[in-house]
């Protein structure tokens, strides 16, 4: 048959079939074995990884009074790919926003410049931090808006309006935080300042994950492997602060209407009992959707209520500095406990005395009467002890010794080993600074005489001042000031190389200040207080009022520094605040309530309000 000739064509057809089929098998091999992207594609299709946010750690005060806790908040999130036939009008109605708000927000989310991690496949935040009443309407009709979801998380709630600066606030993560820490996803919250920032890693806990199965239309079809692969969230650790909330509240009350700050420290532990800065704000206004509007208001107030004056503002400490200068002078041999100097009162040169007292004057009296000439002589003899020497060398060496010892009190540098958010270093000028300013040999004790009375280039923060006061209270050491009660900082003990007997003298002097001197009007019934006032001229109106002090004299439990800007005398403006606060802390109550009320109503700056 002729078909036999064509028989081999059957073989050709069979070969074509076999070859093509093997090409297909190769293709399957590459799809199923070689390439990885389809497996990933399947996972991103079918698995919806739903984050479960852990409750954030609570914050307590030193007496275990609850300060900060959580309340539920709701985010509206969407997955763009899943949005289908959205009835925008009814959606906007339910959320009580306008159509243009909607469009704008959508545009914002999809803008990859502003939102670099945008993807149409992953949940994106549409609106955040809604309260229960805001979502009540939309919750019922959520089924209509495919692609949109409600995500629950928590917001901060505050029991007291006090302590905003200390506690800090939480806000949405910024792109730079996102880059640094891959724990966060866009839209997550993180501590932005204060303790919320410092203890973010403890407070936040660990996010959990629920793996859900999602079908092609975005409907959730249950848990993957019945939740076997889910990760439970870990609640954040609670934080116990060193703050005494009652003391803090009192401090804020007393500073109302004034610009200034007060810092109280427990001397033998370094625990910060109160850290008041005014003007201030109620921390709850920086929560939720009002946060950005309020933040904007705060940042635009010329008195800078967000600025924590206790740790960030720097002032010349004025006469309060004399207590520390006495110690430095004694230790470095500038004076002895029995050294007397002459004082010509207002006629003194080169520094006038602002108080009238007898002459010559002893150290104890000089502290009591805040005699400027005495401390000028002390300073001069300290830095000129070995003369000026060749090229000012001896003088500079003596000055450096003076500076080092002054800085040992905690001045002129930040506390590095602490949990306090945002400190200023202040300044105790270096000899290099003066050499640069006046030339190597161009400066002498006289040139820098203002330093002797805590003025001139010297600047300190109220925190540093309180800490240095604690040094005097402790008679020779301080524990780095801190805010976490659970973290004993006793190993962070800084011993000062100053003879203990010198502290007894300064202690005596500061007792006299409160007994007979400038602060005598504010005695606390039953408590012996040591203190020192300061009244510091400045170029912005009235003098700044200062007070430092500690109590009780034996075994002090509180050391305090108070600054009231542009108020007047330290004795009239700063001393009472310290006195009331010490009483509150030591006696747990106030006997002079009328005085407290009267004082807190005094206003030095009508713009200094609490937000």
């Amino acid at each position: 048959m002729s078909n036999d000739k064509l028989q081999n064509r059957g073989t050709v057809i069979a070969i074509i079939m076999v070859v093509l089929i093997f090409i297909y098998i190769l293709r399957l091999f590459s799809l199923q074995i070689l390439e990885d992207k389809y497996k990933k594609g399947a996972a991103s299709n079918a698995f919806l990884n739903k984050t479960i946010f852990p409750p954030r750690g609570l914050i307590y005060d030193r007496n275990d009074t609850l300060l900060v806790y959580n309340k539920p908040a709701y985010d509206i999130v969407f997955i763009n790919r899943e949005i289908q036939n959205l009835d925008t009008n009814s959606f906007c109605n339910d959320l009580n926003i306008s159509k243009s708000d909607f469009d704008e927000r959508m545009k914002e989310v999809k803008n990859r410049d502003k939102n670099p991690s945008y993807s149409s496949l992953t949940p994106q935040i549409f609106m955040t931090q809604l309260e229960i009443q805001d979502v009540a309407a939309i919750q019922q009709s959520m089924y209509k808006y495919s692609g949109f979801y409600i995500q629950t998380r928590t917001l901060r709630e505050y029991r007291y309006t006090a302590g905003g600066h200390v506690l800090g606030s939480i806000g949405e993560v910024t792109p730079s935080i996102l880059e640094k820490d891959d724990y966060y996803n866009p839209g997550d919250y993180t501590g932005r300042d204060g303790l919320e920032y410092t203890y973010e890693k403890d407070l936040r806990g660990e996010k959990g994950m629920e793996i859900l199965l999602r079908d092609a239309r975005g409907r959730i079809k249950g848990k993957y492997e019945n939740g076997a692969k889910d990760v439970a969230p870990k609640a954040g650790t609670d934080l116990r602060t060193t703050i005494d909330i009652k003391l803090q509240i009192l401090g804020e009350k007393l500073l109302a209407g004034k610009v200034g700050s007060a810092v109280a420290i427990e001397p033998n532990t370094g625990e910060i009992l109160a850290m008041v800065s005014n003007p201030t704000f109620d921390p709850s206004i920086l929560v939720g959707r009002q946060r950005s509007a309020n933040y904007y208001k705060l940042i635009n107030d010329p008195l800078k209520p967000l600025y924590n004056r206790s740790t960030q503002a720097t002032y010349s400490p004025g006469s309060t500095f004399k207590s520390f200068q006495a110690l430095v002078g004694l230790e470095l041999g500038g004076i002895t406990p029995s050294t007397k100097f002459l004082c010509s009162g207002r006629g003194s040169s080169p520094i006038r005395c602002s108080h009238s007292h007898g002459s010559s004057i002893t150290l104890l009296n000089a502290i009591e009467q805040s005699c400027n000439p005495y401390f000028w002589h002390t300073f001069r003899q300290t830095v000129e002890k070995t003369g000026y020497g060749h090229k000012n060398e001896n003088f500079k060496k003596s000055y450096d010794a003076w500076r080092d010892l002054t800085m040992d009190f905690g001045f002129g540098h930040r506390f590095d080993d602490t949990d306090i958010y945002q400190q200023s270093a202040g300044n105790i000028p270096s000899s290099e600074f003066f050499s640069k300013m006046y030339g190597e040999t161009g400066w002498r004790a006289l040139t820098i005489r203002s330093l002797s009375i805590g003025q001139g280039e010297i600047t300190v923060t109220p925190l540093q001042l309180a800490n240095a006061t604690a040094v005097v209270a402790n008679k020779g050491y301080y524990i780095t000031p801190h805010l976490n009660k659970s973290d004993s900082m006793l190993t962070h003990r800084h011993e000062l190389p100053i003879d203990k007997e010198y502290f007894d003298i300064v202690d005596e002097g500061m007792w006299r200040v409160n007994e007979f001197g400038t602060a005598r009007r504010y005695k606390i019934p039953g408590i012996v207080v040591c203190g020192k006032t300061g009244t510091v001229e400045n170029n912005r109106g009235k003098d700044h009022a200062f007070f430092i002090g500690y109590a009780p004299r034996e075994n002090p439990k509180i050391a305090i520094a108070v600054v009231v800007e542009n108020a007047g005398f330290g004795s009239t403006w700063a001393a009472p605040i310290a006195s009331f606060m010490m009483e509150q802390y030591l006696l747990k109550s106030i006997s002079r309530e009328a005085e407290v009320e009267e004082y807190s109503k005094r206003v030095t700056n009508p713009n200094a309000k609490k937000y």
Partner: protein
Amino acid sequence: MRRNISIKYSLDWTVVGIYLFLVVFGWLNIYGASYDFDQSSIFDFNNRAGKQFVWVLTAFGLAGVILLLDSRLYNYFAYVFYALVILLLIATIFLATDVKGSRSWLVFGPVSFQPAELAKTATALALARFMGAYNFRIKGWKDLIPLGIIVFIPFILIVLQKETGSALVFLAFTLMFYREGMNGIVLLLGVLAVILFVLSIGFSEVVIQENSGTLGMVLAMFVILIIQYVYAFFFSNHKREASWLLLGVIAIAGISYLLNIWLPIDYDYVAIGTVFASAVYWLVVSRLKHFKGYAAIFWISLCSILFCYSADYLFENVLEPHQQKRIKVLLNMEQDLRGAGYNVNQSKIAIGSGGLFGKGYLNGTQTKLKYVPEQDTDFIFCTVGEEWGFVGSSVLILIYMWLLLRILQIANRQNNTFNRVYGYCVASVFFFHLMINIGMVIGLMPVIGIPLPFLSYGGSSLWSFTLMLFILLRLDAARKM
């Protein structure tokens, strides 16, 4: 009684076994594909697995009936059957209700039926009958004309039903024509046409230089030049002539490239001009050397130029927009993962996520969660790929290959042309379905909605494939009786 006993012994049980395996495996996978989290029984007649169970049982019944009938009936009634089916196809155009844009389904109460499926069997029988005539043999083009008409009538009727995919199946018969004596060049020209089409469409949007032609046309012309050269140099041994041509082409390419520095040239026309010139050159050579092969080369080149030149036009004006999209997606010219590319992308994801051994029966997440549309009908293979993995899906393909080779073996052992032609028709149609369906699912073919034989859900296709296969088995059994 005697006949029944003999059928038992003469039946090709291998094919029957493969058939049973495929049908049952298909039914299980249809259950897998339509299986939801609120699971229902595989016998629940409200879902597709339950319905398929009915189709499977009736298909077995149909197979039994076919085996019981006299084998001579198929030859005898081939034309009648063909004519009836043609009438049915015509009627369908007018009677059919619109199902997803296609007018190919006749609905009888709860059951709907697609006559186009029957047309394959009817056409195969008609071709076998025509070619089995005592004095018929394919000797030249003229003999192909009546065969072409037999194929073309159902083809065009099905196109009119907007079932282009089912209509394309009729192209499979060319494989059988080749076996029966059609010049093999036709198949090669078909392959060439596909290559030129892919090149000129696939690269039609790649511009070589601003306003100076597309890469597609230049590549297509390059392919034609290579064919000319290889034919002359290796097959006809006119090495001198071929070398001259090569030199000329290089010269033209160089000159046009240099010229382009001063005045912009459209490379498309340079390429077309070059190919045309060389085609004419071969025509001259063919006259001088009295070598007819080059005349063929001339005509092929000329047709290719026309084909490439009009490919864009054909693509944009003859194909429907959705068909254009499917081709563009296949050629990677468009992603469109939410639109035309969605099916294929999702089916690749489903198959790709299966890995070596698959996720296990009823454990495929992509199929369970309905990511792949049509996953129990045209895209059933991706359920197999996801749940049974590379091992399962390639074993399935190998089983199909076994079936195909077995059918070819059966066809070859027939001692009459009718049976053999019919056998090759069955093999060709099955092969075409297999290649197009699996090719589409794994992204090697454009999306053409035709079912995977025996696996896809649907009564019409299962019946029609069963009919086709068991007529062959009946014919084969008769041979031994």
